[in-house]
């Protein structure tokens, strides 16, 4: 009575092994044929990353602190946040983590930029097309839940170890919030307002630019904020494929059980995360100051 046995009647071991070997073989054949082309295709991105990293690590540190403080001010207009930014950066430098932090900031900055450049258009497209929604949503689910090393090693086989595969891994993990929140924000725009814009002769593009995007902005900012947080959360995992920055000392600390080293570098990551979070939230709040505050 096969139905009374607890062991599921799975495919035989030979079949499963043959299946796995076949897929592995196909993937290897693919990397052999197309790997070089893919590498070349990503070269501009790699060069851009290296450039930003060089800027941040080679520039004199007071200049970098000043520029970052100025950016924080421009976005938030809050003395408290600027002060917090400067103090955090100075503390990080004092504890000898400056170079690593700059490398991480460069990587996270570029990753966020890429995530925005890709994610915003996809979110906008999704809000217009239920079919695209049906295709993209499962892909996002996979991107957020598939264990990272599962797709990291194939990426390494295609592109080698270093910044670009690390960037790809971070972007894959961090892009879903931007896409989801953009889509949500656009969908939540008051239908009456869209109708009014259409009645006054607004084209689709005009409606998007003058009504939908401005009104979706609070939600989109929440998505961007989440993307930045997830990108920083990936810092240690990215270092597992050779990305430099704060992740490497943390890895070393894990392997050798150096508690304090791990803690200090981890706190540096937290510090950067808090800076990014506060600045982006303050910017988001500033953008919405004309919208009515929800009454209790």
């Amino acid at each position: 009575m096969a139905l009374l046995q607890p062991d599921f009647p799975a495919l035989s071991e030979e079949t499963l092994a043959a299946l796995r070997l076949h897929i592995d073989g196909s993937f290897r054949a693919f990397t052999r044929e197309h790997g070089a082309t893919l590498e070349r295709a990503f070269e501009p991105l790699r060069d851009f990353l290296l450039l930003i990293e060089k800027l941040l690590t080679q520039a004199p540190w007071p200049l970098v602190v000043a520029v970052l403080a100025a950016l924080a001010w421009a976005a938030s207009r809050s003395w408290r946040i600027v002060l917090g930014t400067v103090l955090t950066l100075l503390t990080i430098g004092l504890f000898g983590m400056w170079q690593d932090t700059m490398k991480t900031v460069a990587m996270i900055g570029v990753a966020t930029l890429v995530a925005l450049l890709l994610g915003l258009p996809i979110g906008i497209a999704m809000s217009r097309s239920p079919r695209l929604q049906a295709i993209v949503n499962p892909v996002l689910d996979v991107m957020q839940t598939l264990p990272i090393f599962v797709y990291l090693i194939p990426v390494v086989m295609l592109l080698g170890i270093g910044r670009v595969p690390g960037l790809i891994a971070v972007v894959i993990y961090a892009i879903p919030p931007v896409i989801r929140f953009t889509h949500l924000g656009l969908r939540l725009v008051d239908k009456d307002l869209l109708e009014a814009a259409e009645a006054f002769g607004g084209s689709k593009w005009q409606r998007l630019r003058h009504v939908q995007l401005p009104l979706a902005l609070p939600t989109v900012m929440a998505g961007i904020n989440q993307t930045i947080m997830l990108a920083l959360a990936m810092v240690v995992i990215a270092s597992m494929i050779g990305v430099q920055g704060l992740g490497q000392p943390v890895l070393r600390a894990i392997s050798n059980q150096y508690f304090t080293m791990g803690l200090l570098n981890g706190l540096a990551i937290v510090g950067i995360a808090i800076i990014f979070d506060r600045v982006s939230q303050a910017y988001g709040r500033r953008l919405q100051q004309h919208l009515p505050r929800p009454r209790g």
Partner: protein
Amino acid sequence: MSLPHFSILAGAAALALLAACSKPEPATGPAAAPAAGTQATPCGRVTVANMNWQSAEVLAHVDALILSKGYGCEVELVPGDTVPTLTAMMEKGQPDVAPEAWVNAVREPLDAAVKQGRLHYAANALPEGGIEGLWIPKYLADAHPEIKTIDDALKRPDLFPAPEAKGKGAIYGCPSGWTCQITVGNAFKAWDAKAKGFVLVDPGSAAALDGSIAKAYERQQPWLGYYWGPTSILGRYAMVKLDAGVPHDPAAWENCNAKLECLQPAKNDWARAQVSTVVTDRFKQAGGPAFDYLNKRSWNHQTVNTLMAWMSAQQASGADGARHFLKTQPELWKTWVTPEAAAKLQAQL
């Protein structure tokens, strides 16, 4: 009772009935469960460290099979890694057995523990020891027969281009946090690789290092970096170890090359790493004949490499590899075990 409620109740009752009806596995063959008094000193519970690389994994499973089916031990495999497992054995006496311990990583505290009698060395799991060094792919060595030593390779940064540092050569180093990171870093300094136009690339993890070799090999691209054996990668991809050009100097190694703080490391070859089985004192006292087995059990590189090549080809797990080994090489493992244990094992294969 409404229909949905009734269905749930009926379903639960049916499942309970099925569970009661399905027969338990009948005990097959003699001594599957340790029967009191029929065997000399049943060895009781043993925890065996199952470390996360292929040769250690298959060895742990071989030990688990032999100890449980041959000696009647109750074996539990616990995941492990060199430093955490040995530290735990030293501090807490758990797990009982580390089948393939690369002891150089924790040489000093380990020797201290052995001196105090808390831990013991059993057999050298790999009597030839582990090999470490800088390797290049065989196709590259064939294409450039003039490159035989590390010095030869360092003359050609153009041959090993670094993808993220234009104009420089790349040496792939040891993953973050491993002890070899120190020795490779010092070798980089000793051979003055930076001045010769090379950068040392930190791969971050063993998986990434393996991935970079696989990527290079699939596309016949050049690769130069640190690796160790016996490993599945060396079993799968033919690599050639570069000659250091100097012999191994143990004193200099201890004082300088193996230490992070060493300011002026000199050129030094890697030692053959000692790879031994380490057991706790408790197990040595209580294990009886099981400990004797662990004192005898060892295999050479060729055996291990062949086995791992088979495992990679079949995508087999450590357990499958262990079973395959026991089935195909009885003449080897029978030399490790007592005749009674051998008979029991043979019957159950």
